């Protein structure tokens, strides 16, 4: 789960990372008042979770409170990669002497929380990795003892920080690490970490991505989820315990298991169709979850057919078949359904499906072809 910039900064500030004072606003008047309270020139920044907001016109400088209101008028309501801006962060315009990149990531290959640091801040780290990989330090940390002082020193020397800033830098890196560990993050980055005109270190922008699997023990962080930026159908799916991602095609997919769900989408495409979604109903799927999956898929008016592909294992095929038949009976909108159930209790499942007159398929390739054909036919 990604956190907005201002949320990420709040967390970092609580861990002693110097962050410029800022206020969020959802209206131009709010932005004017915030700018007046802050005083001096400010930056008005769109709060969206997608990247590239600067290029999209979502970050603007304002010399006065009235100008801040004008910039907020331009930014609020702006569409950035399909996301409508609803909140801006108003923050003092800092004079920047130098920009660094400082981040922590969960490095799956090294199986360690790893420091990523670069003296080329202010650009995307992936960009630096492509153009100048030697400018990046990657330092994996020990999983049991965590960040050590010699590692803090090593990063500071790598970045070439002036001696007088090393102490403050240590506090920032330790704070970033504490924030990462305590919030169970996948990523915590400060980009850029700047030296201001006054010669102080400050986090100008920050991003924290949380580990979804750890949210169960962080209800206070789960509460920060920005529902305004999510597809409503994706919110409904999560509440029902379903993994769902909306796409642009016409063939709804309901599958158990993430790998098989991706494969089903791939085969729909290979058969000449376009998947309308990724949907994994998860292990041990019950009738109520199947019913919820139907509702979520059919809310998408582009959906012309549904392909249901269930391979038993932890999921019992007969339960799924019952769920499909029951749920189908209560649906407001009917579309053709191609159902394939294999594995645990598959023969019981097949009997239930046949009795309900659903389109069945022998193989996944066959199911994909039938679904593409069904979506092409009217009704």
């Amino acid at each position: 789960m990604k956190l907005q910039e201002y949320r990420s900064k709040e967390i970092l500030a609580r861990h002693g990372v110097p962050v410029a004072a800022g206020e969020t606003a959802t209206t131009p008047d709010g932005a004017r008042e915030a700018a007046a309270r802050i005083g001096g020139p400010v930056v008005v920044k769109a709060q969206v979770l997608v990247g590239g907001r600067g290029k999209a016109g979502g970050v603007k400088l304002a010399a006065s409170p009235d100008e801040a209101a004008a910039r907020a008028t331009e930014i609020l309501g702006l569409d950035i990669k399909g996301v409508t801006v609803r909140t801006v962060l108003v923050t003092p315009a800092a004079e920047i002497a130098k920009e660094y990149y400082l981040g922590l990531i969960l490095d799956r290959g090294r199986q360690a929380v790893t420091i990523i640091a670069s003296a080329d801040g202010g650009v995307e780290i992936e960009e630096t990795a492509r153009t100048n990989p030697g400018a990046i330090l990657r330092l994996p940390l020990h999983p049991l003892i965590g960040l050590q002082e010699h590692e803090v020193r090593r990063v500071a020397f790598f970045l070439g920080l002036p001696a007088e800033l090393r102490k403050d830098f240590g506090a920032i890196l330790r704070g970033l690490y504490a924030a990462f560990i305590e919030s169970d993050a996948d990523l915590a980055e400060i980009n850029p970490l700047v030296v201001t005109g006054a010669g102080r270190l400050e986090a100008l922008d920050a991003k924290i991505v949380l580990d979804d699997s750890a949210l169960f023990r962080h209800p206070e962080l789960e509460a920060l989820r920005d529902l305004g930026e999510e597809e409503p159908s994706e919110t409904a799916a999560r509440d029902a315990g379903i993994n769902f991602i909306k796409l642009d095609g016409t063939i709804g997919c309901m599958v158990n298991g993430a790998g098989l769900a991706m494969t089903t989408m791939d085969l729909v495409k290979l058969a000449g169709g376009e998947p309308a979604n990724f949907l994994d109903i998860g292990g041990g799927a019950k009738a109520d979850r199947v019913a919820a999956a139907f509702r979520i898929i059919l809310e998408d008016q582009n959906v012309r057919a549904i392909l249901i592909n269930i391979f038993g294992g932890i999921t019992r095929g007969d339960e799924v078949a019952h769920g499909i038949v029951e749920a189908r009976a209560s649906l407001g909108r009917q579309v053709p359904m191609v159902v394939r159930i294999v594995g645990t209790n598959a023969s019981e499942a097949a009997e239930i499906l046949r009795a309900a007159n659903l389109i069945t398929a022998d193989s996944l390739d066959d199911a994909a072809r039938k679904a593409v054909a069904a979506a092409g036919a009217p009704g």
Partner: protein
Amino acid sequence: MSILVGAATRLLVQGITGREGEFHSRAMLEYGTNIVAGVTPGKGGQSAVDGQVPVFDTVADAVAQTGADAACIFVPAPFAPDAMLEAADAGIPLVICITEGIPALDMLRVQHVLRSEGVRLIGPNCPGATTVGGAKVGIIPGDIHRPGPVGLVSRSGTLTYEVVQAMTDAGVGQTTCVGIGGDPIVGTNFIDVLEMLNADPETEAIVLIGEIGGDEEERAADYCAREVRKPVAAFIAGRTAPPGRRMGHAGAIISGGAGTAESKRQALQAAGVRVADSPSQIPALLREAGVR
């Protein structure tokens, strides 16, 4: 011969009295797996799966009394890290964790401890491992297999069953099938299993099933090119996955342009691996490579 599990395995199931634990323990017993013990704290002295398996309060008790040498974990995510550490502490050398949704930072610590103690961890968030005709440990349906010369390693669950079923339907049998799990931090990676299958005299060919995210498949491709002389066929899921979105598995995400299906397919093809467009093509690719 086979790898990881077999007829000699003496299995212990942690969480055996839970719904999934009991359901799958019954299926494992039906397959012929030798489950010697179950563990559920507070239910020691009882028995599970219709009296077929004695239940102990601790893994240490179970090991002392039954000589269990492998553990399969069905414990809910908040308690699974502790269950893995308990199995390692009791001296069990092979731990297979089915549980999904374990926090990654917990897994970093658990994996570090298990590795330093020489414990082989499979998973978490994996379907387990089955040696055909020997033992099934986990949740892979038993009846999809047939004995034969092909070893299989996969990051996925149900997609593994799909491929195995396609192989069995085409008359291509298996030695051992291993699901390594779809989480970012897993105990055993592709290369670990490739190494075992490469060394296993009964395995004549290998199937690798990957998906978007990370660079495990690219590294496996590199290993295949350098070390594996047996034919390898592969399928990579997620060619239609949009970048920046987590596709169900915590590890399945294309980020910063890396981890795409295309990059993995190209790396594998460059390493001489036969890459399928659909799971159903895997048997034909194996036949083409000379598998009987």
